[in-house]
């Protein structure tokens, strides 16, 4: 399964069923025996080829993406929505979306510039101001087509452009899912617990259950992460740069990375000549927080692909960074 297919599947947090179904089919076709746990995670355990006792390494990527959820219906047939996962409402205006399981086309409307007052123009529109227009004639039709709790996804096709860049939605974290699928093709010395987890964007919920149940020795979290390598942003605050390789975290708001593992990862990357960078920021959080503190504690590291404009309808990655994520994870697993 390629990255295009993975990112074009619509599956916001709590509604992972479409991606889960696609992954299950893919994994079974490749001869794996995946199972689904009670948090909706998809787990595959692939035994390593090294001598026993082998390290059990959980490699986790989250299936869910940020999206919207219907919270009400307005008289004219419009949908009122809020976020499932963190989205800046400023990136939503005038974007096309797909609503519900039937992928009903919709657009996030905004007041035309002609009709805005000076005060309107100075103000940021929030979720209370935003309407999703699905072409419904009235409130009753809107309620019928998109009842409360219906999920909404960005309607963004995957395109490759420039020299090795890709633009699309949900790179956070389908790029990590893609890397795990690639790892499952490899023969690795340690046992690989491949965990495609749910509900990361709303609080790293799926990974808690997966790590508790599987009790790995080490956790490797594969992510898409923030990247601010734009225009006049000073280098010291760019976080990381597209094209400079996989980003290795030392700390974020959910975990402080095990220092031994951090140094080992950097050494492995150096020795194998894999493009890498240290992520220069402590913002955000991810499944490492849940995995690290499962049961009696698990050393954990995070390897990320830098994503420009993350958590928006259109983000940009460099594909060579995804390759570096795959290469470094593979090399690290051989060195554990």
């Amino acid at each position, binding site marked *: 399964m390629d990255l295009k297919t993975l990112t074009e599947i619509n599956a916001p947090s709590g509604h992972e069923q479409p991606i889960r179904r696609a992954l299950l089919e893919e994994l079974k076709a490749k001869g794996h025996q995946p199972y689904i746990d009670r948090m909706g995670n998809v787990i595959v355990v692939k035994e390593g080829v090294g001598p026993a006792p082998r390290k059990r390494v959980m490699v986790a990527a989250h299936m869910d993406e940020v999206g919207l959820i219907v919270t009400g219906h307005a008289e004219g047939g419009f949908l009122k929505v809020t976020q499932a996962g963190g989205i800046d409402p400023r990136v939503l205006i005038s974007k096309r979306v797909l609503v519900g399981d039937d992928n009903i086309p919709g657009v996030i409307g905004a007041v035309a510039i002609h009709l805005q007052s000076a005060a309107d123009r100075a103000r940021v529109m929030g979720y209370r101001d935003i309407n999703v227009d699905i072409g419904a004639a009235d409130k009753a039709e809107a309620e019928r087509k998109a009842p409360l709790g219906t999920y909404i996804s960005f309607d963004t096709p995957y395109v490759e452009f420039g020299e090795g860049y890709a633009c699309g939605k949900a790179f956070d974290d389908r790029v990590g899912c893609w890397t795990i699928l690639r790892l499952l093709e490899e023969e690795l010395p340690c046992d690989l617990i491949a965990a495609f987890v749910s509900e990361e964007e709303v609080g790293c919920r799926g990974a808690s259950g997966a790590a508790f149940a599987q009790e790995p020795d080490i956790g490797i979290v594969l992510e898409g992460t923030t990247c601010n390598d734009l225009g006049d942003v000073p280098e010291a605050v760019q976080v990381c740069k597209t094209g400079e390789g996989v980003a290795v975290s030392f*700390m974020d708001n959910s975990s*402080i990375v095990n220092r031994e593992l951090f140094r080992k990862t950097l050494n492995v990357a150096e020795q194998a000549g894999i493009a890498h960078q240290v992520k220069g920021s402590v913002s955000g959080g991810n499944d490492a927080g849940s995995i690290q503190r499962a049961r009696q504690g698990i050393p954990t590291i995070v390897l990320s692909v830098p994503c420009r404009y993350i958590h928006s309808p259109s983000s940009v990655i460099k594909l060579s960074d995804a390759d570096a994520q795959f290469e470094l994870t593979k090399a690290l697993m051989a060195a554990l």
Partner: protein
Amino acid sequence: MFDLLKKVLSPVGPSGLETPVADVIREEIKDCVDTVEVDALGNLIATKLGKGENPRKVMLSAHMDHIGYIVTGIEKEGFLRVTNVGGIGMVNSYNRHVVFPNGVHGVVVAQPVSGQPALKDLFVDIGAQDKDDAKRMVQLGDVCVYANDCFRLGENRVAAPAMDDRCACALLVKLLQTVGETQDTIIAVFSVQEEVGCRGAKVASFAKEPDIGIALDVTGWGDTPGVTLPEIKLGEGIAVKVMDRGSISNPALREALIEAGEQAGVKTQREVLPYGGTDASAMQTSRGGIPVCTISIPCRYVHSACEVIDMRDMDAGLKLLQTYFN
């Protein structure tokens, strides 16, 4: 106690990098406990087996980690950009002497901005000529803390950074050294990463499944100009926590600890803290739930480079715990 406190205060040990602290503590306790181990997150766990029949397992947790500044970027002129590890206040960040685990010194400075500076406006001057020079001394992800400066203040008081929570570590070490035979099994956890969310205590309490959990930590003060809450005074005795933002103490355990203080003839204070939390919060919600309380050492100017405690409160805490276990 003062010499021990000084020893435990000296290692550089920000959250996530507590090994130097664990090394010092291990030397102090290894001969007076039955087992010492280090878990996956770096908690130092010492067990002293109880002599009673089916002894209760009582976990005592004092955290080794210290708040600090983590390097997130290096400017081309050699200045370090940083952010907080744990609760760092701006007021405590102006022109502070800091030190890295590898011995590199620095000064935290706020650059002039319009309005109030924020964490992103701080930089650390490590005396580097340029970026390459800085990278020879410090890497992205390195963490610095307020440089140790421990001194006596008046007859009974001591000031130092890292008093939160090394004074409680010292208290726990002293307890292990002096308590002798006990009915209860004591699981002494010198925990990691408390300042970023009680992470060490969470996994340690899962692993050790104690029957009772007692956190040893510092608490705030209400006895200096302009500060009235919590109603805690330095030198007025060891505090027994009723509640903070992280946990409500088990009433029976709380009263048993206060009673132990009375028996020991030491002063205690009931503590209701309108902010903060301790390892008790992590222990309380572990597995099926654990009765918890916190024994708090009153501490002025918590999370600054000059945290002040009163040694008489430390002695009261020691006697209270000795009595509780005897």
